[in-house]
């Protein structure tokens, strides 16, 4: 099937992301990449658990002193909602509704940006209120590296989806860019799943464990 060909909703395939060889390769390769990313985050989680509450002396804040669950809960809800909106976007991609797909991705980006803003607020809050900086203890280094790496992934995901929205605004949907949208949404889901683990392992266990 030709990647540049124009389609109508009638002849648009059910799974446009895996119609071309390039699309199939992207689909598979990206899942493999996510396997590597999983190990990467697993390593960061292991480091965090090993260094949790590990501070030089008692003047440094511990997990139970720091975390503010209402704020983190709000962040969680925003990010999880953005995952659903990206599902809607892919739904419309499969039905060849280009404008609706773009719109849902825009909503996804806005929610992601909201999450990022709250995270930046959270970090500055810890730094100013608790003097909990990147270098203040092993615990702080592990915390900021784990959550910060996730934040960096969110930032990259936002830039990626924005780049896709802009580059394709005039091109419309075809079998060349459908796999690109699809793997970007996969990436976005992956980031969400990682956040679910961060919410549990860092914040919930940090507060009660």
């Amino acid at each position, binding site marked *: 099937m030709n990647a540049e060909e124009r389609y109508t909703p009638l002849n648009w395939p059910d799974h446009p992301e895996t119609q071309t060889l390039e699309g199939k390769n992207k689909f598979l390769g990206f899942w493999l990449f996510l396997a*590597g990313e999983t*190990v*990467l985050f697993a390593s960061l989680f292991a480091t965090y658990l090993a260094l949790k509450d590990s501070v030089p002396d008692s003047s440094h804040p511990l997990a139970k002193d720091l975390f503010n669950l209402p704020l983190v809960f709000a962040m969680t809800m925003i990010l999880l909602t953005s995952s659903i909106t990206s599902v809607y976007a892919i739904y419309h991609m499969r039905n060849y509704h280009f404008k609706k797909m773009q719109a849902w991705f825009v909503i996804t980006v806005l929610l992601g940006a909201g999450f990022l803003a709250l995270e930046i607020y959270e970090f500055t809050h810890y730094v100013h209120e608790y003097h909990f900086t*990147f*270098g203040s*203890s092993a615990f702080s280094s592990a915390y900021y*590296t784990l959550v910060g790496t996730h934040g960096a992934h969110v930032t990259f995901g936002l830039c990626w989806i924005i*780049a896709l929205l802009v580059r394709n605004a005039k091109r419309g949907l075809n079998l060349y860019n459908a796999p690109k949208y699809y793997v970007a949404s996969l990436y976005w889901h992956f980031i969400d799943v990682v956040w679910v683990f961060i919410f549990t392992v860092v914040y919930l266990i940090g507060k009660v464990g």
Partner: protein
Amino acid sequence: MSSVAVKKGLGASVWEYLTTVDHKKIAHLYLGTGGFFFLLGGIEALFIRIQLMKPNNNFVSEQLFNEIMTMHGTTMIFLAAMPILFAFMNAVVPIQIGARDVAFPFLNALGFWLFFFGGVFLNLSWFLGGAPDAGWTSYASLSLRSEGHGIDFYTLGLQISGFGTLISGINFLATIINMRAPGMSFMRMPLFTWTTFIASALILLAFPPLTIGVFLLMFDRLFGSNFFDVTMGGNTIIWEHFFWIFGHPEVYILVLPAFGIFSEIIPTFSRKRLFGYSSMVFATVLIGFLGFMVWAHHMFTTGLGNVANAIFAIATMAIAVPTGIKIFNWLLTMWGGSIKITVPMLYALGFIPSFVIGGVTGVMQAVAPLDYQLHDTYFIVAHFHYVIIGGVVFGILAATHFYWPKMFGTKLSEKMGYVTFTLFFIGFHCTFFIQHFLGLMGMPRRVATFLPGQGLELGNLISSIGAILMAVAVIILLFNVVITSIRNKKVGADPWEDGRTMEWAIASPPPFYNFKQTPLVRGLDTWWLEKMEGKKELTPAEPLGDIHMPNNSIIPFFISLGLFVAAFGAMYNPLNSVGDGKSWGLPVLIIGLGITFGSMLIRSLRDDFGYHIHKEDLLEDDKGGKVG
């Protein structure tokens, strides 16, 4: 796009190699760069052996010795052995499965350039204030306090080249899963493809822990974090775990492809199909799986406790079983075969006993109480050189002779090959066999010198003489390469006459589109099968048609260059623990990352559909014209 080729100037060839996405050209790049680093690592090894030739020697200072010893290990593993294996994987695997290219030609080029710039960055440390000096394992307690920027070159260089390796691993996995020709089921894949597949899976799962390890070490040294600083609540054992969770699978990442190479060579020159093909595949998968279960055997003396040590000891011993399966399969392949002795076959014959010695000493070290005695002695040095040289380097040298015709269209001189093999084989055993005894007598590894009168003189002298023999062997190999290139005597598609797999069915070197028509695979040892039925070519699976090819691109070069620039910025940023931060540190870091992400953005914004080679041009190619 296609046109009749004109003779290209030097500039055009350089540009071609800078922008190429063709797996066969990328193989040349990997072989050339990896070969260069192999020579560099070899010179470092020679310096080590000259320093240790006699007691109280002062050929190099203690500090320089530490740097040479660290760079020898780091260079050989990351910049020589792996890239050279990637060269053969790139040259052979896509053709073995009947594909026209890898799944991601662009990423293939990106993987190479990341490795290239990572390797260059690491080696620039020699000129910019001293190389890393904490051993290739770079244990955090030691590396954290290392003076100068050596360790920073290590952490940043390995991150850049590690990304490249990871990308290549994903690429080979996707290629082997998605790009196989019709009829090429998993259980018809040649063993080299199988071992590449499993090694790539190991890369995918083992490199992220290394990335995180060096990432944390980089933060500790350059950005003021405290992961490994015990006074701030840190923990140095975390580094050991990450390093070995990567480091042990790394051994199999290196040796499995070498096993694959021998599994191609032995059936070819025994003129008999591989004995126990399915058990070979099973053993490969099992070694890959168990490879992740044994990392703590490097840490028996760290003090993880008896239970942990016992579990890891038993898991380690279990790996001997699938490895033993392989050894017996190779022996039984030769049994009753019509053996032809060639240079690649000689390396295969030398490999089996050498590797078995390395394997047996490995099982000895798996016995945790004995390991307390052997840990950090020359016994360990002897063991891993038996595995790495006896397994991986023999595999690389065998493949160099075996696949040279396929990669370059000429055949390396067999006579000189025999000389190289003989010298290298004798030199290798001379260097490392005696080191077992040096270790048992108590000589610790990584020492810059030793004292007279402790019974270590003769052993060290013998060891150094062996190293010189190996150096002479490598020089003869280089001479062989030069002579063969000057003679430039072209060979046919199947220069060994007994080729079994599909790469021997197409021209040497293959046309850039590999197969004019995608082949139909009718069984294991596809090409052998066709030859035995009297066919002159592979059975096609499709009619002759247009071929879709990817466009060349300079972007991989710039993505990698950006990280190379950024690494300098990170190293000299004002927060670094060495205390020589520069005001230009952060701007350079940002500019470098800007180049990288900007290049990625350009790649993303442009449509790149590739191009088609038309049927008519392919037919013309048949008549002697050239497409390209």
